[in-house]
């Protein structure tokens, strides 16, 4: 009977080798996959139990981990929760992490390869692993001005402000209203977390939404800057040229009043008028006509050169690890009537406040659009800078000459035209108002404002959108509310 016993021992050997092999597969090869699995509570627990790095604005932490005496060792806190919530996001239970907390998770948790040396030192000195710090590009005064400006508006405000440094693409301010308290989403108690999350998610005004990057709206008249850029770039026009004017413009392929564009009472002359007058008075008739002269292809090309139809901003992420940036849209297929409407920022044109700030910043930076970024530096726990973001060009939207011409047009719009609320004494400000039809009868128009200053050597470009506030319809237009916010933000940057 010994031969079959030997065969059975070989069978047993095979069974044990299979077990050994499978255990190795599970604990060595698959271990990394399990670690990245969002539903793995061990990973969450470990994240909560280690000292996560801080998110800094200047030297001031806007998100930090402090020792906690409950079941986890550290509690994430946000010292200025409402001001910075759209940027920090929150560090919540069960992998619910958003914003910079999410996009810089590997740095903050200390797993990032750039922190390798620090990690080894921690390991050898037997200290708990510490996360790295993330310093943002935000200018705290500008951020404060932006948030205060939004909150000062009457009623339940929905809106956003973005400020960019034109020469680098640094985001200097990014505010969104209404905002929320991320501390409520960083609580350790799962039941409390659940209640808070449901309350915020169920809120009709969507406080968790960062309207500066996540909301696209018709840009309205602020888009006339892009139309003007396209027209100037054809070479047929300069800032001093005469452009088509008139009180009404019948869109091609249409007849009757529904296809007729007017200027809501602003003086746009008749026949041909100076380009400056058209911009100052935000002449719908002029820009609808120019869009058709330029044609849909050139309009699309110009819009895309400013960043439409593109993803370029990854510093804010959702819980799924994907960028929060909504793509601003310019339609690719349209007829002549629709092309005319896109010239004044209607039809299917949609832009985020960030996108409109980039349009201004591109012109302010002599036609070059810089890639916007929010994370300036990565620092080790000992505040050594281990990495710094280098500004990169996104595209050359217009030539420097066209940019100079556009700047002249926009400066006179502030000094003589509709954008006057943003004027700063002693400094040339370039700017443009916008009022975009929501397309729904019960939803009031959206008020836009975008500007940059100083015009010749811009330090800041701003875009403001007021999606909803307790403002009479008649006062939405004309930059009455958006202009002062933009002005306050620009002053905060310039008067450092």
């Amino acid at each position, binding site marked *: 009977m010994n031969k079959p016993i030997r065969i*059975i021992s070989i069978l047993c050997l095979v069974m044990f080798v299979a077990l050994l092999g499978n255990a190795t597969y*599970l604990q060595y090869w698959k271990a990394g996959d399990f670690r990245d699995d969002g539903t793995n509570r061990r990973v969450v627990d470990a994240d909560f139990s280690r000292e996560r790095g801080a998110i800094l604005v200047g030297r001031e932490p806007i998100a930090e981990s402090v020792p906690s005496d409950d079941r986890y060792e550290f509690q994430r806190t946000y010292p200025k929760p409402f001001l910075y919530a759209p940027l920090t996001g929150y560090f919540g239970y069960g992998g619910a992490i958003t914003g910079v907390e999410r996009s810089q998770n590997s740095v903050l948790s200390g797993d990032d390869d750039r922190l390798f040396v620090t990690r080894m030192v921690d390991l050898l000195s037997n200290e708990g692993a510490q996360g790295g710090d993330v310093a943002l590009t935000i200018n705290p005064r500008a951020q404060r001005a932006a948030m205060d400006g939004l909150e000062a508006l009457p009623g339940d405000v929905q809106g956003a402000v973005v400020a960019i440094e034109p020469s680098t693409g640094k985001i200097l301010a990014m505010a969104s209203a209404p905002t929320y308290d991320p501390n409520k989403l960083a609580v350790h108690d799962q039941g409390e977390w659940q209640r808070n999350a449901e309350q915020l998610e169920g809120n009709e005004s969507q406080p968790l939404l960062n309207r500066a990057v996540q909301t696209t709206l018709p840009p309205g008249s602020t888009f006339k800057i892009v139309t003007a850029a396209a027209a100037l770039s054809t070479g047929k026009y300069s800032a001093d040229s005469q452009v088509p004017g008139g009180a009404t413009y019948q869109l091609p392929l249409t007849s009757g009043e529904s296809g007729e564009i007017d200027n809501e009472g602003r003086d746009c002359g008749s026949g041909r008028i100076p380009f400056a007058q058209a911009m100052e008075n935000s002449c719908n008739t002029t820009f609808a006509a120019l869009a058709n002269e330029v044609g849909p292809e050139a309009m699309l090309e110009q819009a895309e050169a400013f960043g439409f139809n593109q993803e370029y901003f990854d510093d804010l992420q959702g819980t799924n690890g994907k960028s929060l940036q909504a793509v601003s849209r310019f339609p690719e297929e349209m007829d002549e009537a629709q092309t005319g409407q896109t010239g004044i920022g209607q039809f299917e044109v949609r832009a985020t406040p960030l996108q409109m700030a980039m349009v201004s910043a591109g012109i302010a930076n002599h036609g070059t659009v810089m890639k916007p970024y929010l994370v300036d530096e990565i620092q080790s726990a000992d505040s050594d800078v281990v990495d710094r973001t280098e500004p990169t060009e996104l595209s050359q939207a217009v030539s420097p000459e066209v940019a100079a011409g556009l700047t002249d047009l926009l400066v006179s719009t502030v000094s003589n035209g509709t954008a006057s609320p943003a004027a700063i004494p002693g400094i040339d400000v370039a700017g443009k108002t916008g009022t975009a039809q929501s397309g729904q009868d019960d939803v009031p128009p959206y008020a836009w404002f975008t500007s940059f200053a100083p015009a010749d050597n811009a330090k800041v470009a701003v875009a403001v959108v007021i999606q909803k506030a307790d403002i009479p319809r008649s006062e939405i237009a004309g930059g009455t509310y958006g202009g002062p916010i933009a002005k306050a933000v620009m002053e905060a940057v310039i008067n450092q």
Partner: protein
Amino acid sequence: MSQSPVTFTHRSRRGAELLLLVLALAVGIGAYAAVGLGVQGEVPANLIGYGSWLAALAVVAHVTLRFVAPYADPVLLPVVVALNGLGLAIIHRLDLARGGESAVAARQLTWMTLGVVLFVVTLVFLRDHRVLQRYTYTCGLGAVLLLLLPMVPGIGADINGASIWIRIGPMSFQPGEVAKILLVIAFSGYLVLHRDALALAGRRLLFIDLPRGRDLGPLLMMFGLAMVILVGQKDLGSSLLFFGIFVVMLYVATERPGWLLLAGGLFVGGAGLVWWASTSFPVEAVRGHLAHVKTRFDIWLHPFEYYGEGTSDAGRQLVESMYGMGWGGLLGRGFGEGSPWLIPLADSDMIVAAIGEELGLTAVMALLLCYGLIVERGLRAAVISRDNFGKLLATGLAFVIALQVFVVVGGVTRLIPLTGLTTPFLSAGGSSLVANWVVIALLLRISDFARRPAPDLSTPDEPDQDATQVVKLP
């Protein structure tokens, strides 16, 4: 008469066993101390009492061997003591995670004591394993009764979907653990008598001699029992275990691979039929009854679809087990640094996952090698055993452990569908621990017989009883 042909004599090696036992105790007591240090930050207050108790049990077992089975294999006892000690430490660690009142480890230590007592009793009273051959049919009947017990209404208990438990008052008990020993004894006794008849070749198919049709009786009976367990108790693991033992022993007894093929085909066919019945049997009640078997299979294929909110969460055990083992990685998190309490049943069925999380792949491999050693030592005893009953008994017992480890560890690591078997010597559970100590006692008894110097069978040249003795000069 010629001289005895045996020229090689085994040494008793009890000294080596003692040395290995010291190492084994170092593992068990060291792990217990490490749990205290890792979880509570201090050496447990009762370390000396606990360590002495564990050492006393090991010494009692060792001394018993010295007296009643001096030639028994020296490796088995230390390996078992090490496994049992490690199991106790892990159970204690999970007790601490549950908080003050939980005392599974203390209960397990009591069961271990009972296990060692039965180990000693078995070795002391069973001086010759061949005695067991007398109880072939008693054992067989006992085993069948025990296996059917969980299906008796009133005392059978459904735990985690499978009904392999019986519950009388506060005591719960897995009769299968005892039944597996009785079955191995019954198979050995039966096969040793009927092996010649069963080995007769029937039809030849593809180089393999199939058995004769008239000899299929016992196989079909065992197959029937396995299917009853699968259907009645909804447990693929036990069913596979009992049928597997029988088939392997049948093969070893007859040396006919044909049996293996036939039995393998039968089992796969039977399990397939149950699978079919669980999905599309025309009677709804039957489908519902068998749904558990099907679910286990589905969970094995797609564990993550059965995990988390919005699902039945039936895959939690397996997914948490895999997360835990992945989290442990090569070297483990260390005692007190992991979260093994997230794994349901971490101290019984899933204990290997808890070990994998806190002690890492290294410890899992060491464990598997320990089990491999037990199996190898058992099969070695079978090979060198001088009687066929002993050979069959040792093979059966060794293979029980191999198959049980394969089914449970394979289930925990998602090599095969997860079923509710205990991990020998590690899992919390009295019936399993005690039964496995008896298995080791039987293996040691057989190996003692096999390694003993051969009795001097040569008759003296001149019989002693003669009135006058001739004194031979050298």
